[in-house]
C-alpha cells in the first residue's frame, strides 16, 4: 500500500511537471495553483480508493469524483452544498464555462489572461490527465504509456506557437516522465525485497542498478532525440525551431526595422521596407487575429508626398484613438459594401516603431491609451511618445469592398477638393512618364478606367517581372529606370503606379503594411519581416482611398487581389494552386476579395527574372503522408518481424521428407544403422529447432507460460495435459514436436522424415482457439514474442554498457588522490 501511495504521488507530481508547457500560454500562474489543487485531490482520491482496496474501476470512479469536487470548489456556480458538492446548476455552469472557453480561445492570443473559462478547461484537462496517468502507472503498471497523455498537454503550446515551440517546458515535462519511469522501476525492484551489496550493506533504492539504469539511460536518450529532432530542419516544414533561434540571434542588432524610433513623420519607410525584405533572417513581427475571412493587408504607414526624389512620408495629425473614430459606414455609397469585423494584433518585441499596424479603417480600439492617435486622412495609428514594441491591442474595423461599377461612377475630383489642395496630385515633371500616362489613359472615360489602364500596364504581358534585389529608389530617375527595365519589387511597383496615377491627375499615395503572409493558424496570421509590403492607394471622389496592388502576386507571399484590381498576370478564371494550402478564402463572405496567397519563398535574383510562371512551392501533404506511413510502418514492424520469422522457420521445415524414421536403438548396431549423411542430420536438427522456436514464440504470443527450466518433453507433457487436452490430433502433433526437438538437442541422430510443419500448424490452431480474442489480436498486431526479444536485446546492451562504465569508473577511482595518499600512508 505504501508503495502504491508513493507511486501515486509520483504520478501526480509528474503530471504537474508535464503541465509545465502551459506556462507558455498563460499570462499568470493561477492555472498552476488550481491545477495543483485538482491533481492533489485526484491523487488523494486514488490513494483513498486503494486504501479501501477498491477495484480498478472503483479507483477511476473515485478519482473522477475527486476531480468533480475540486472543479466544483474552484469554479462554483453559487448553489453548491457545502461549497464542494455539485448541484445541477453547477454542471450547467460547467457547460457554460466550456462554451466560454471555446470563445475565449478564439478571442485571446497568447499569452492569455486568467479568464474563468480558460482556467476551467485547463484544470479540467490537467485533472483528466492526472486520472489517466495514475490509472496507467499505478493501476495498470504501464508507466511508459503515461507519456501519451503527458504529451497531449505539450501539444497545446505546440498548436498555439506554430513554429516557435518553447523547449524548456518540454524538458521539464520530460523530467517528470523520467521521474515516473524511474519510480516505477525502483518500485518493481523493491517488490523482490531490499537490495544488498555483497557484504550485506543496504543499497540505496536510487542507486544505479543495471535494471533501473537501463531504463533511465534509454529514457534520457529518448528525450535527447525528441529535443534535437525539431532542430533539424525538415524540408517542407518552414519555421522550425532552428529558424526562430537563429533569427532570435539576428534580431539583436536590429538593422533596418521599419522606422525604429523617431517621430512618425520622419521615417523613411521605403528604406526600412527594402532593408527588411532583404534581411536574410526571418523574424516574427506581428501576430494578428481577425474574424474577417480573408482580410486585405494590415496597414501601418503612408507616403503621400511626391517630390522629384520620390514618395515621402509626411507628418500625421490625429485624435486619440480612445475617442470614437470616424465610421465609414456613414458615407454610404451604392456599390460599396462595408462590413464590420474585429481584430486583435500582437506586436512582437522585434517591431519597434511609432506606428501601429491596423486594418483600414478602424472605428474603435481597445487596450490602447490616449497617447496613440488616429489620422483619419492617412488612416494610420501613430504616437509621438509610445512605440509599437510588444503592444497588444484589439480594434473593430470596417472593411470596404468596391464594385468596379461603383468606382466607375466616381467623377473627376473638383479643383477645390481638399486633396487637390493638399497637392496629392502634384507630380514632378518627368517627360517619359507623362508620355506613357497619356498613352495609357487615352480614350479612357472614367477615373477608374484610367487607373485600371495604369494598373493593368504593370503585368507580365508588358514584360514586368518581380525581383527583390534591385535598387529600391523611387525618384523620378528611378521610376524611369523601372519603367524601362520592368524589373523590381513591391515598393517600385507601388511608387511607380502612384506616380503614374498622380500624373493622370488622380490623387494617389503609397501605403505600407503587411500582406496576410503564409503562416496562418485558424484566424491568426503570424507575419514576419518577409511579409512587409507596399502598395498603391487611389482616391475616388465620394468613395475614398481604394487600394491597388500592382506588384506581381507571385513575388508576394499572401498577396491579395480584389475584383476592382484583379491579378493581371493570372489567366481567367483564377486556377487553384494544386497542393498549396488554400488559406480559407471564402468568396461568399467577402464577395469583393479574391485571395491568392502563396507560401513564403526566398525571392532571390534568379527566381523571377524573365520568368513568367510563378514557381510552385512543394506541397506539404506528401510529408504528412510519408510521416503517417512511417508511423504505420513502425507500428507494423513487430508484426512484420514476426511474419518474417515464421516464414523463415517454415522454410526450414519442409512438410515431409521421404525418409524412414530410424529406430530408437540402444545397441551400437542400431547406432551404426542410424548414421545418416551429416548434412541431412544437421538439416533435420535445424528444422526441429526452427519448429520448436516457432512453437515457443507461439506460446509467448498466445500468453501460454514458457518455462526455461522445462525440457522439451516436459513442455510437451504440460501442454498435452493442459491447453491441448481433448484435441487428439494436436496431442499427437505436440508429442511429435517434443520428440523431434529432444532428439535434435540430445540424441546422436535427429528425427528425420517426420512432417513437423503440419504438426506445428495443428498445435498452433488449437492454441489460437484456446486463446481469447484480445490475446489473438495482440498476437497478430503486436506479437509479444518479438517485443520481448527486442526489449531483452536493449536490456542486454544497456546492461553491458552499465558494466563497462562501472569498470571504467572503478579504474578511474584507482587514481583517486585520496586513495593514492592512503596507499602511501599505509606503506
Amino acid at each position, binding site marked *: 500500500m505504501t508503495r502504491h501511495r508513493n507511486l501515486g504521488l509520483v504520478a501526480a507530481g509528474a503530471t504537474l511537471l508535464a503541465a509545465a508547457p502551459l506556462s507558455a500560454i498563460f499570462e499568470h500562474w493561477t492555472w498552476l495553483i488550481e491545477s495543483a489543487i485538482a491533481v492533489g485531490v485526484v491523487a488523494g482520491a486514488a490513494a483513498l480508493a486503494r486504501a479501501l482496496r477498491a477495484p480498478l474501476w472503483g479507483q477511476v470512479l473515485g478519482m473522477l469524483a475527486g476531480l468533480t469536487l475540486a472543479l466544483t470548489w474552484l469554479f462554483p456556480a453559487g448553489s453548491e452544498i457545502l461549497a464542494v458538492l455539485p448541484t445541477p446548476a453547477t454542471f450547467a455552469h460547467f457547460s457554460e464555462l466550456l462554451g466560454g472557453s471555446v470563445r475565449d480561445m478564439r478571442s485571446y492570443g497568447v499569452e492569455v489572461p486568467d479568464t474563468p473559462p480558460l482556467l476551467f478547461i485547463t484544470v479540467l484537462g490537467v485533472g483528466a490527465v492526472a486520472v489517466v496517468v495514475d490509472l496507467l502507472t499505478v493501476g495498470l503498471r504501464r508507466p511508459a504509456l503515461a507519456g501519451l497523455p503527458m504529451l497531449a498537454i505539450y501539444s497545446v503550446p505546440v498548436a498555439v506557437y506554430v513554429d516557435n515551440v518553447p523547449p524548456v517546458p518540454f524538458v521539464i515535462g520530460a523530467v517528470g516522465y523520467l521521474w515516473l519511469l524511474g519510480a516505477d522501476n525502483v518500485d518493481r525492484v523493491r517488490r523482490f525485497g531490499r537490495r544488498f551489496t555483497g557484504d550485506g550493506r543496504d543499497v540505496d533504492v536510487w542507486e544505479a542498478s543495471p535494471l533501473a539504469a537501463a531504463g533511465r539511460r534509454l529514457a534520457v536518450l529518448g528525450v535527447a532525440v525528441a529535443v534535437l529532432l525539431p532542430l533539424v530542419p525538415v524540408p517542407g516544414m518552414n519555421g522550425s525551431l532552428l529558424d526562430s533561434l537563429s533569427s532570435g540571434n539576428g534580431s539583436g542588432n536590429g538593422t533596418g526595422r521599419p522606422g525604429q524610433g523617431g517621430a512618425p513623420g520622419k521615417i523613411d519607410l521605403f528604406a526600412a521596407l527594402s532593408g527588411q525584405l532583404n534581411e536574410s533572417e526571418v523574424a516574427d513581427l506581428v501576430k494578428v487575429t481577425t474574424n474577417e475571412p480573408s482580410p486585405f493587408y494590415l496597414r501601418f504607414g503612408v507616403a503621400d508626398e511626391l517630390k522629384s526624389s520620390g514618395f515621402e512620408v509626411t507628418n500625421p495629425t490625429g485624435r486619440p484613438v480612445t475617442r470614437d473614430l470616424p465610421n465609414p459606414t456613414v458615407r454610404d455609397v451604392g456599390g460599396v459594401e462595408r462590413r464590420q469585423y474585429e481584430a486583435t494584433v500582437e506586436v512582437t518585441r522585434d517591431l519597434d516603431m511609432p506606428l501601429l499596424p491596423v486594418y483600414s479603417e478602424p472605428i474603435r480600439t481597445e487596450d490602447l491609451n490616449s497617447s496613440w492617435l488616429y489620422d483619419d486622412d492617412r488612416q494610420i495609428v501613430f504616437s509621438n511618445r509610445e512605440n509599437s514594441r510588444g503592444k497588444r491591442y484589439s480594434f473593430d474595423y470596417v472593411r470596404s469592398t468596391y464594385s468596379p461599377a461603383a468606382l466607375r461612377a466616381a467623377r473627376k475630383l473638383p479643383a477645390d477638393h481638399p486633396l487637390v489642395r493638399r497637392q496629392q496630385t502634384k507630380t514632378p515633371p518627368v517627360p517619359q512618364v507623362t508620355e506613357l500616362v497619356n498613352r495609357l489613359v487615352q480614350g479612357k472615360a472614367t477615373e477608374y478606367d484610367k487607373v485600371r489602364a495604369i494598373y493593368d500596364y504593370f503585368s507580365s504581358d508588358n514584360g514586368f517581372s518581380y525581383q527583390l534585389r534591385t535598387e529600391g529608389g523611387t525618384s523620378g530617375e528611378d521610376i524611369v529606370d523601372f519603367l524601362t527595365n520592368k524589373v523590381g519589387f513591391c515598393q517600385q511597383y507601388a511608387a511607380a503606379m502612384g506616380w503614374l496615377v498622380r500624373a493622370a491627375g488622380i490623387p494617389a499615395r503609397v501605403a505600407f503594411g503587411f500582406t496576410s503572409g503564409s503562416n496562418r493558424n485558424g484566424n491568426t496570421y503570424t507575419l514576419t519581416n518577409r511579409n512587409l509590403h507596399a502598395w498603391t492607394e487611389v482616391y475616388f471622389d465620394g468613395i475614398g482611398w481604394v487600394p491597388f496592388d500592382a506588384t506581381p502576386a507571385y513575388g508576394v507571399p499572401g498577396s491579395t487581389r480584389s475584383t476592382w484590381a484583379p491579378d493581371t498576370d493570372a489567366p481567367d478564371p483564377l486556377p487553384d494552386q494544386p497542393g498549396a494550402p488554400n488559406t480559407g478564402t471564402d468568396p461568399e463572405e467577402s464577395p469583393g476579395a479574391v485571395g491568392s496567397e502563396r507560401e513564403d519563398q526566398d525571392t532571390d535574383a534568379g527566381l523571377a527574372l524573365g520568368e513568367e510562371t510563378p514557381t510552385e512551392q512543394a506541397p506539404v501533404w506528401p510529408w504528412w503522408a510519408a510521416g503517417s506511413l512511417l508511423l504505420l510502418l513502425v507500428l507494423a514492424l513487430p508484426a512484420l518481424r514476426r511474419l518474417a520469422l515464421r516464414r523463415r522457420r517454415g522454410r526450414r521445415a519442409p512438410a515431409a521428407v521421404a525418409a524412414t524414421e530410424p529406430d530408437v536403438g540402444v545397441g551400437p548396431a542400431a547406432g551404426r544403422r542410424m548414421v545418416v549423411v551429416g548434412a541431412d542430420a544437421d538439416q533435420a536438427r535445424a528444422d526441429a529447432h526452427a519448429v520448436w522456436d516457432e512453437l515457443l514464440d507461439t506460446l509467448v504470443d498466445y500468453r501460454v507460460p514458457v*518455462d526455461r527450466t522445462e*525440457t522439451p518433453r516436459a513442455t510437451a507433457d504440460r501442454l498435452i495435459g493442459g491447453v491441448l487436452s481433448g484435441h487428439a490430433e494436436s496431442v499427437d502433433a505436440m508429442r511429435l514436436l517434443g520428440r523431434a526437438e529432444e*532428439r535434435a538437442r*540430445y540424441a546422436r541422430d535427429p528425427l528425420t522424415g517426420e512432417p513437423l510443419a503440419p504438426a506445428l500448424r495443428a498445435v498452433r490452431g488449437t492454441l489460437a482457439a484456446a486463446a481469447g480474442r484480445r490475446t489473438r489480436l495482440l498476437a497478430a498486431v503486436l506479437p509479444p514474442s518479438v517485443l*520481448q526479444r527486442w526489449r531483452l536485446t536493449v536490456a542486454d546492451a544497456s546492461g553491458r554498457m552499465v558494466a563497462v562504465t562501472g569498470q571504467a569508473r572503478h579504474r578511474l577511482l584507482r587514481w583517486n588522490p585520496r586513495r593514492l595518499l592512503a596507499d602511501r600512508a599505509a606503506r
Partner: protein
Amino acid sequence: MTQQTWDEVGGLLPHDEFRAASEAIVANIEQVIEGKTATVRLALAVLLAEGHLLIEDVPGVGKTKLAKALARSIDCSVRRIQFTPDLLPSDVTGVSVYNQETHDFEFRPGAVFANLVVGDEINRASPKTQSALLECMEERQVTVDGVTYQLQTPFMVIATQNPIEMEGTYPLPEAQRDRFTARIAMGYPDVGAELAMLDGHGATDPLDQLRPVSDAATVRRLIATVRQVHVADAVKQYAIDLVTATREAPDLRLGASPRATLQLLRTARAVAALEGRDYVLPDDLQALAVPVLAHRIIPTADAQLARRTTDAIVSDLVHRLPLPNDRKRSPYDTRPAGGNGRGPYEPRRP
C-alpha cells in the same frame, strides 16, 4: 575364482536383447516386491551404472527383500553381511591367517569378495567397520596386510539402513555416503499393492521360488552397452549446472562431489538405456537428482532447523535451474547477459 578386471565387461548387446534382459530382471524382482516398479528399475539402473545402492527407509517396507531379490535374480556370487554393532572390519574385507601346514600367512577373503554384496542394516555397525567398505566400494579392491586383491565385475554393494533418527544407529560417515551411487526409499506400498502382497505372500515367501534370470556375463554386457549411451554436451553442461547449484546453494553446507557428477551421468545413462533410448535427456538427470545427490549433501544448521530435508532442497534446485541451451541465448532468458548465467535462485514461473 575368475578374476575379471575393471574394463573387461564383455561385448555390447543389441537393442532388443538389452531390452529383453533388463525387462526379465525387473519382472523377476517384481514377483517379490509388489507395486515398486520405479524403485526396482532404479535399483537395476544403479547396478548397470556400476554403482552401489543404499536403500533407506523405516523398518518393514521390504528393503532387505528388494536387496535379496535383486541378488537372487542374477546368477552370480552373492554374499550377505548383517551389520551388527560387534561386526569387525576383517569380517568385511577378509583376514590373513597363519597356515600351520604351509607355515605361511594365507588370505581368507571377507564378505565383499562377491559380485553382489548385500549389507543389511549397515548403519548398525560401528563407524570403524563401516569404513572397511571405503576402499572396496570406490576402488573395487581390498588391501589387507599390504597385499591388494582385486574384486570381481560386476561388483555392487546393496546396503539397507534405517533412517538415522531410529534407535541404535550410527550415521554413515560422509565419505561412506558419497560412495553410494544412489539412495532410494522404498515407501509404503499403495493399497492395491499391499493387497496383492497379502494374497501372494500370505502363505509362502515368493523369494524362495525366485530363480535367476540372468548371469554375471550378461550383466557385464549390459553394463558395456550402457557405457555407450550418448550424452550430448548440453546434458553434460546441465549435470555440471546441477552439481554447481548444490555447491552454491545457501541452504547447503556441503554440496555434491565430482564423484557425484560422474555417478549422476552414469546412472542417467543406465536409466536412458532401460527406457530404450541411446541418449540421455535432461529429464533423466532431473529424475535422478534426488536419489543420486540428496544423500551426499549436508544442509546448513538453519536449513536443518527449518526442517528442510535434503530431498526437498535438491528438488527445489532442480525446479529452479534453467536448461542450458547451447544453441543460443533463449529469448525468455531474463538474466542480464554476461553475469553468472547459472544462478539458480530465480522464482519459477507460475
